[in-house]
């Protein structure tokens, strides 16, 4: 009886472990195959690191990776500024249209990406904006804003208003109080939001697919194209690098948030 009870007690833990293993299985497989000697990566034939240098010699891959970084960088910068200012302003104003604005501003991450991609595609074609880097940055910044908005807004709700009041009482103007008091207090939240937005932008396939021009392919769009046609031997190394970048960004974002919520 006792052993039976001990066994059943272990079941929830085993279940947690099993699901977590399944969640990480495909990631582990991709990373493992990136060190596989056999180029097509079907059978395990031996350990090698040759695909990583090969990656850096492939000009197409490097160009698409560079494009991804540029797009993510600009979108995060734009979204970081607009999202932070918007979050601060929204937490102050009590006008009714602000609530409506907040809901509408969240739409880009609520609607499925393909609907958003279509909206950008038809609008940019209407105003004559060709597909390419600018279209990519505008569209990415739009879906990056909600992440920063939510995270900074959550942080501001938990913030003690007396910090700012003290600064104002001591004679700081609103702008100075904002820069010297509020921004340092919400900096971890801003950074956390920006990192998350960065990961989202680096990972995006669907919107980028419709926004990228012939010379401005982003990395995930390149990978998607290759997965459907010929899979190059370097693909696993390629995927491992992106996974690494997003993993670090997401984990850092999470750590910042759990640390930042203590003040």
């Amino acid at each position: 009886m006792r052993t039976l009870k001990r066994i059943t007690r272990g079941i929830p833990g085993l279940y947690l472990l099993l699901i977590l293993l399944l969640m990480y299985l495909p990631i582990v497989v991709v990373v493992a195959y990136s060190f596989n000697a056999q180029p097509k990566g079907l059978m395990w034939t031996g350990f090698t690191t040759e695909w990583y240098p090969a990656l850096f010699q492939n000009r197409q891959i490097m160009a698409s990776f560079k494009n991804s970084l540029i797009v993510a960088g600009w979108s995060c910068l734009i979204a970081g500024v607009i999202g932070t200012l918007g979050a601060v302003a929204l937490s102050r104003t009590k006008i009714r249209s602000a609530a409506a604005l907040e809901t509408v501003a969240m739409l880009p991450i609520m609607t499925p990406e393909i609907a958003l991609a279509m909206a950008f595609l038809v609008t940019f074609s209407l105003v004559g904006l060709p597909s390419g880097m600018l279209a990519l940055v505008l569209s990415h910044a739009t879906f990056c804003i909600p992440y920063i908005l939510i995270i900074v807004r959550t942080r501001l709700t938990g913030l003690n208003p007396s910090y700012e009041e003290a600064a104002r009482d001591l004679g700081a103007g609103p702008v100075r109080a904002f820069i010297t008091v509020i921004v340092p207090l919400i900096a971890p939240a801003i950074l956390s939001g920006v990192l998350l937005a960065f990961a989202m932008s680096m990972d995006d396939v669907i919107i980028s697919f419709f926004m990228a021009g012939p010379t401005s392919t982003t990395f995930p769009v390149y990978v998607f194209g290759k997965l459907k046609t010929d899979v190059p031997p370097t693909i696993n190394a390629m995927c491992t690098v992106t996974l690494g970048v997003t993993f670090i960004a997401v984990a850092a974002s999470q750590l910042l948030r759990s640390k930042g919520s203590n003040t």
Partner: protein
Amino acid sequence: MRRKPNKKGGLLALMPLYLWTLLLVVFPMGYVLVMSFMTKNDQFGVDFILTLGNYIRLSDPSNMNILLNSLKTAVFTTLLTLLLGYPFAFAMSKRKKSQRNLIMLLVIVPFWTSALLRTYGWMLLMRSNGLLNNVLMGLHLTEKPIQFLYNNGAVLFGMTYSLLPFMILPLYSSLEKLDNSLLEASRDLGAGRLRSFLTITLPMTLPGVVSGCMLVFVPSVGLYFISDLMGGGSGMVLGNLISYYLTTGRDWPMGAALSMVMVVLTFLTMGVYRRFASNDSLGVF
């Protein structure tokens, strides 16, 4: 000394967000709505001739079959993620705090990392000369490779896998908030484990269930690269159809009408969610 909030400064700070949202969210979506009532012309362009034709064409068998299939996939994916996710969130909420935080981090990281790359990982495992078939043949459990990929089941699997964290996170957030004293009270009053679960835990976590279902249902109609890669032509979803009309199909008004179907679906589920879980965030952030 209380100062009135600086109204002008507040509005000024709001302007960039307001303008950006107006120009890049409201206008584009409004334009898609308008386009869904326009007519496509022979030059792959769009004529400003009002018509309901695009919406009428939704019922064409070629569109309807995919719409229905997408709906079916969405319902099954939601059910599967709920069945797998609830026990997970439940077991997770019973762990020690340090363990809970670790599991949370482990669930969140794949939640935010590329679904495309993880789908590719499954393709590596499941294709006919992949790892899984090699293991099965090595164990003499099968003579020739089993075709795991390129059918409806593979699409359902891929969707369930990709969207499972979307279910677990809101479920866990509502389970974590559950007041344990309620459960103790019901146990003290003589209710069995199952009865306490059905009469207390389940109703109290319903908001989590609803938001989880919403977060799985809506994206599942749009994740067309999963059906593209794992289904290879079968198990197409609404997203495949829109992408077809935007690219090879060259019929933007039809794509716009289908987009509107998707947007309406999003609004409906958001409305349902607001009714059930008016409290706070989706539990995702």
